[in-house]
């Protein structure tokens, strides 16, 4: 039980971080899932990766509560009436947040914050409203200590949205991550400009392509979507049972040539990952009891029929490079076309599969461009163009956009800007508008000297990135950020002028 003792003795962990580490050790001793030899072989080779989700899934990886419903009905289990004023509203939300599980131990979705708060601002004078919002955000950062905690804003401008953006900019916290559901026709330039200025300073909010998300989720049979965790699109009032990722960089060397990759190696790997995902989903749904016993399900704040699962992938760039005879993904049209063909085939094969026990989206798993983990080395996130090879900004966006339509459960690109961009936030807004128009699903930006840095999808404060002492971090995501800086070169992103 070396791992457990190491966790107990680790001086760089807080007590609650030790609890989590010990729980992971315990979970790893369970042999609950039937895993075929073929699946295991690919897991051992690092081709199929479950992102340390655990050997015995006891809760969905991502839970996306219907907070609007909670605000109308309160919660019997939590002993809360429906809130009637601003204080009650914010307090109720903060209580509920502590009871929303996920892979991180903290909620990955804290609601469409402006929609939740706005009705309670009537008649509240500005300074009181501002202080309430500020303390609400502060409490999130200091108690939900993980920057995969994600709140949404928009698409329409609101007073509450404005306060959240203004106070987030002043607080400079990594938590919560924020997305603006952006539709140029609904959001308006003033509000979008406010968001752009904020993003340059604190790397949030990101711009989510509201039109694309809304259309995709309607087509999948959901009435609403939320952006959660890094940039994951999931049904509101539901979530995702699991996320497993296919490491295309590790897969590439197993194929002799392109024909072998597309004809044998890739379809086989996709089939095996689907088999593994089915096993994880089945265990969660049929054996863990989550959907029978959890109060969120019982009170209708999440519904079983809105839970899907995410088929993830990483390392497309390296896979394409390996089979393109010197042509480079992100720089060469032919290489990019090959990359698109790989994604198209994966998407088709995944869309044809039916999960044995899920109803959402007719039982289909949703494709997800996984954003990388901190110990990835030489594996680019999702379909991203590798750091160090990025083309000029608008060329980069135009090259990346065609991939985005295949990933309803999330894909995103990150851009670092010269500090001078702060003087011209309209420039960032123009870029965001162009990105939306070109079909980019999700767009993150920050100024290269900002106090808060976007790692691969989550945020870490710059001072936490630069710490070298081994004392505990307040936020669980800080150590991931430091590792990612070393392994992924995230601070070496091309700076855009």
């Amino acid at each position, binding site marked *: 039980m070396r791992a457990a003792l190491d966790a107990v003795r680790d001086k760089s962990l807080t007590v609650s971080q030790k609890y989590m580490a010990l729980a992971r050790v315990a979970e790893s001793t369970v042999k609950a899932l039937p895993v075929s030899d073929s699946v295991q072989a690919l897991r051992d080779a690092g081709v199929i990766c479950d992102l340390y989700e655990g050997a015995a899934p006891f809760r969905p990886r991502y839970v996306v509560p219907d907070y609007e419903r909670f605000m109308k009905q309160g919660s019997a289990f939590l002993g809360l009436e429906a809130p009637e004023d601003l204080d009650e509203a914010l307090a109720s939300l903060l209580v509920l947040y502590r009871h929303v599980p996920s892979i991180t131990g903290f909620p990955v979705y804290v609601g469409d914050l402006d929609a939740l708060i706005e009705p309670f601002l009537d008649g509240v004078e500005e300074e009181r409203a501002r202080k309430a919002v500020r303390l609400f955000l502060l409490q999130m950062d200091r108690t939900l200590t993980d920057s995969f905690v994600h709140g949404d804003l928009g698409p329409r401008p609101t007073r509450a949205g404005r306060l959240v953006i203004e106070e987030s900019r002043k607080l400079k916290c990594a938590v919560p991550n924020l997305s603006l559901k952006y539709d140029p026709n609904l959001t308006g330039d003033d509000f979008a400009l406010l968001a752009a200025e904020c993003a340059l300073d604190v790397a949030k909010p990101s711009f989510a392509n509201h039109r694309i998300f809304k259309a995709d989720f309607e087509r999948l049979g959901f009435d609403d979507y939320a952006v959660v965790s890094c940039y994951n699109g999931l049904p509101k009032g539901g979530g995702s049972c699991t996320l497993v990722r296919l490491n295309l960089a590790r897969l590439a060397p197993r194929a002799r040539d392109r024909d072998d990759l597309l004809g044998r190696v890739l379809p086989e790997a996709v089939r095996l990952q689907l088999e593994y995902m089915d096993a994880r989903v089945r265990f969660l749904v049929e054996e863990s009891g989550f959907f029978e016993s959890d109060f969120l399900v019982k009170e209708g704040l999440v519904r079983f029929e809105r839970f899907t699962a995410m088929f993830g992938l990483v390392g497309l760039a390296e896979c394409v490079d390996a089979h393109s005879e010197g042509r480079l993904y992100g720089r060469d049209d032919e290489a990019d076309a090959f990359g698109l063909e790989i994604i198209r085939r994966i998407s088709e094969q995944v869309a044809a599969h039916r999960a044995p026990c899920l109803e959402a989206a007719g039982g289909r798993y949703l494709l997800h461009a996984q954003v990388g983990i901190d110990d990835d080395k030489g594996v680019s996130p999702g379909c991203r163009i590798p750091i160090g090879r990025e083309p000029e900004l*608008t060329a980069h966006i135009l090259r990346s956009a065609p991939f985005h339509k295949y990933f309803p459960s999330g894909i995103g690109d990150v851009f670092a800007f*010269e500090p001078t961009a702060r003087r011209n936030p*309209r420039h960032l*807004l123009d870029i965001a508008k162009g*990105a939306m128009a070109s079909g980019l699903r999700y767009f993150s930006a920050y100024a290269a000297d900002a106090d808060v840095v976007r790692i691969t999808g989550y945020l870490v404060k710059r001072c936490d990135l630069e710490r070298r002492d081994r004392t505990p971090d307040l936020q669980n995501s800080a150590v991931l950020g430091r590792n990612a800086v070393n392994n992924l070169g995230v601070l070496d992103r091309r700076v855009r002028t």
Partner: protein
Amino acid sequence: MRETSGFRNEVPDPVFSPLSSISRSLSLSSSVAPCLRGSIPPDGLVARILYSSAVDGPGNRAVVFLQGCDFDCAYCHNPETRNLCDHCGACVGACAYGALSVADGAGERRVRWDEGACRDCGACIRACPKGSSPKTRRMTPAEILSRLETRKPFLSGITVSGGECGLQAAFLEELAVAARAAGLPALVDTNGSTDYSKLPRLVEAAEGFMLDVKAWDEGVHRALTLAGNAMVKRNLAFLAGAGKLAEARVVVLPGRVDAEACVRGIAEILRTGGAAGRGRTVLKLIAFRREGVRPAQVALPVPGREELEALAALAGSEGLHDVVIV
């Protein structure tokens, strides 16, 4: 020349400065008699096109840099845009990517640049003994806008710069008209040596002008740029009066630029130009930076923050409140 304390007034010998011949050769190829305007599309000599920029006007703009300049500013940070390539071929060997070659055709030797092979490393520019670049090419407004077609959703407009774009006035006018028609209004970044009052169609079509006021005193201006500034001041007044002076810019270079006089002079002209001019004009104070300047100028002094802020305060006291320090 009038002595002005603190500024050097000697005119350095130019190494290579066919200023008048540049103007002539540029305008000969791009000036088109009015009666022929509709039949021959004017083309211009383009140094390069940047697809997006945060620093060439508000919003995201594509920038079209035109080749050729009639000033020779000491602090020029893109000196390779000043002169015309004479196809001497000295750059060809410097290219490690095979993007340059020499072609002899019709008794004329020409250097050819293969844009697809180019890696933008700058070796050819560094190797050029004539203050030019082999990458310039003639383009029509339609060709330029066609290049920008896929970028349109990202753009607020275009900015035409250089070199000095005013030297190719007929082309500039057609480009501004075409750009506006394409929904990408043009800002014109200029040294003010061309008489814009004679180009009403250009002034009408352009979104605005960003005018460099290099120095106020004529002598200081000549020492700095090898050219006078009477036309610059006339343009300042004219463009402000026309409501098209988007920016007046002063590069602050201690000991070589009379920045205070510039600020006062600009304020005075905007005051007499009427409220319309003053309200819309941003005064941009640009700190001299060493990046990209010619080797002889690398030792020039960089202004401190306090000096720039003092100028901004002076501008405020003269009624100029829209001031940006860069």
